[in-house]
């Protein structure tokens, strides 16, 4: 009863072999077992998008994913985007556009943008808004986040 399960996952191209209780969420696994604290907890109910990560190419709120469910998956967190000191173009665009204030929504916002631009390289404004609808931000009013996504599109061209 309630025994631990063994899972193997790849996070930011690094393989992990772990024993987890079924009630461990992917969010807590990343933050507390793997020390990847760039993924943030904002609501723990899938409503805010701060805990967004990319699982097998798809964005998910990691607070609503059990670690046991992602056995075998490849996961990208915010820590997996930049190469050393060199920022990913999306990260750079968020910095340059003033799209970062308190920074708590930022990792989720950037990962959602990453998934968007992987899927649609030159999205319309409606497509950007549709993709980012689940990432809440209280600081920026979103104007500069839209700017950042548009600037990222240019940087990636």
């Amino acid at each position: 009863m309630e025994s631990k399960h063994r899972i193997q996952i790849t996070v930011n191209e690094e393989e992990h072999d772990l024993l987890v209780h079924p009630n461990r969420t992917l969010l807590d696994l990343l933050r507390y077992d793997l020390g990847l604290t760039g993924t943030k907890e904002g609501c723990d109910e899938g409503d805010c998008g701060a805990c967004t990560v990319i699982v097998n190419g798809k964005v998910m709120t990691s607070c609503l994913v059990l670690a046991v469910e992602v056995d075998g998956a490849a996961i990208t967190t915010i820590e997996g985007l930049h190469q050393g000191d060199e920022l990913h173009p999306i990260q750079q665009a968020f910095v340059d556009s003033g799209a970062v204030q308190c920074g708590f929504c930022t990792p989720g916002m950037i990962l959602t943008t990453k998934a968007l631009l992987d899927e649609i390289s030159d999205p319309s404004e409606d497509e950007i808004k549709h993709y980012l609808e689940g990432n809440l931000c209280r600081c920026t009013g979103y104007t500069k986040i839209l700017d950042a996504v548009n600037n990222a599109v240019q940087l990636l061209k």
Partner: protein
Amino acid sequence: MANFSIVGKRIPHRDAVEKVKGSAIFTSDIKLSGMLHGKILRSPVPHAKIRNIDISKAVKLKGVKAILTSKDVPLIKYSISPTWADKLILADTKVRYIGDEIAAVAAVDEEIAEEALELIEVDWEELPAVFDPLEAVQPGAPRLHDEVENNISKTMSMECGSIEEGFAEADVILEDTFQTQAQSHCSLETHCCIATCSPTDDVKMWVSTQAPHPLRQRLAATLNIDAAKIHVSAPFIGGAFGNKIDLEPAQALCVLLAKKTGKPVKIEHSRKEQFIATRMRHPTRCKLKFGVKRDGTIVAKQAEVVLDNGAYNSHGPAVLAYHNVMFSTLYRVKNIKYDGRLVYTNKNWGGACRGYGDPQASFAQEVMLDMIAEELKMDPIDLRLKNANIPNEVTANAVQITSCGLKECLTQARDKSEWTTKKAHKQKYRGIGVAAMIYTGGGSIGSGFNYSGATLQMNADGTFHLLMGALDIGQGSNTVLTQMAAEIMGVDPESISLTTADTDTTFPCMGTFGSRVTFCAGSAVTEAAHGLKKQILETGAEMLEANIDDLEMKEKKVFVKGSPDRSLSYAEIGAASFYKKKKPLVAHGYYNGPEVPPEFNPVTYEGYPSPALVFGTHLAEVEVDPATGKVEVLNFVAAHDLGRAINPLLVEGQIEGGAVQGIGWALMENLQFENGEVVNPNFHDYKMLTIKDVPKISSLLVETVDPNGPFGAKGIGECAMVPTAPAIVNAIYDAVGVRIKDLPATTEKVFQGLKTQG
């Protein structure tokens, strides 16, 4: 106008790189070895006597390390001021709202701490509760605090000129009542703190706070510990909006749990706790009576106000004072009467929330002005221009205004929004609305305190290190304040290293609130920078054997004017100061202003002492769907007088974020209570706007260059949401003739308004 090389530039946030990499450390990211997890047992009932608390089962649970009830903690009441202290960190005999702290547990993990809470048994004697402030003041209403009659925590009455004569002079008198609802701050990071405490009470706390130095003082007072033994440090802060100024019971309990267990303890609020048991914007009921002349001159204005305090004071008394000040100071009106009451109810309690009572005052006054404009058949912008404040005036309530760009805000917003054309060619279901605002652009010394300190030192290699108590909660003060120092020192702002938000290493700062950091901390930083510049020049003069008046500083060098060969690099001066002269160069700046004028009346808040007042205008264009009552904001223009924009990129960020918070409050944000219980304590039922719901915000920066502000700057942080709601509501009226007088303007209210029209 002065030419600056760094001030006025669009420089990205200096912390942004760490934040986009996910390497910025917030409090909840910190894990100390042996760290325990704390949880708080909260009252499930709105009003009850505590007969007994039985922790016997909970202490036996494996993994539980400590449990605190009121027997284990100092019973010292606190508030933001000792005068208003009414809250214990753990309830002793009585709980007053759903969420009141009863007990605290520390355990080896959160799961066990939560399980322990379920095992604590509380024996209640439930009491009748009161939720409506108008009922709470009636004779025989349940009383929250034994010593407070009629549940009235504070009253505030003021009359300037003669209200009676004013109304006698008026051609038209209008009266109406306006109501506003509770708003939650919704910083994406919840409250979190980690404490260690030695057996001799040496406390270290990492905490998500807007005000580390005041927090140290309040922890000291509440826990009976010498403040000097408490070290408060704030890592990155995930937003705050006023909710992280107070002492939180969790913070004090965290220290006590750490003390009892001898281990580090972390307490992190859940989102639900954040909604039900941290502060919110005070709901208000505001009855207004305005007297105007046919030409639009407002000759008398009167307000009767009830602020719903909730169960405890927090900032309530000061929010009431600000509601009065901002209502009374906006526009040139000779005769003013204000009567306000702050009333306890058995609900979550109000606190500081972006705008500090001003959005509530603005909503009532600015909708009333729209109604007056209609009555007088006058353009709403012309009506405001007619009564607008002007520079260097003293208002009827004895407030000294220095710089003032209200008229410029009104006219520039009018032009940008194409107001005149849109008014002339109205489309069905579309409308445009305006509202204006006043606020402080630098906190206030009404309490006797408005302090910020800074230290700037030159390192041995000629670089600079800036230490300041002020902290960046996302608004960008680290960037803006280093820009100011960099402008004076002639260096790249990124090259100045920073220590902030740490009580042991920086001069005290009141904290990041009151739109005060740019002005107050900026004044301290510029003072320190000018002081250090003088020291560098003095050192240079001595080393170059030149007259100080003949020296110039440029490109990290000190040189004799006209003889660039006779120069010293900053590195040479830095090295000499440390190793030859053994007197490192360091300068301090400290602000605590303005001087309190003799006119200041701390009871009525006449003569309100703000270092600088700021003004603004919001213009909203909306479209209403008659089938549902849904309001879409199509265009939004926000003009703000901010003295000078030290960093326009960051200023725009403040305006855009504030306006969107204001649109949310105008249309849907509402912390809803049923019998004292919050029924929407989550982000799916508490409606923060999504990226799909927001219009493009056009910001207009009106630079009036304040005579006292650093580089002429004034604050902006809170201001950007003050006039938003009335602008939206006035636009709805323009669109469909439905006048919303109680916020939020939900789709249902707009729809019912349309239905009533038939």
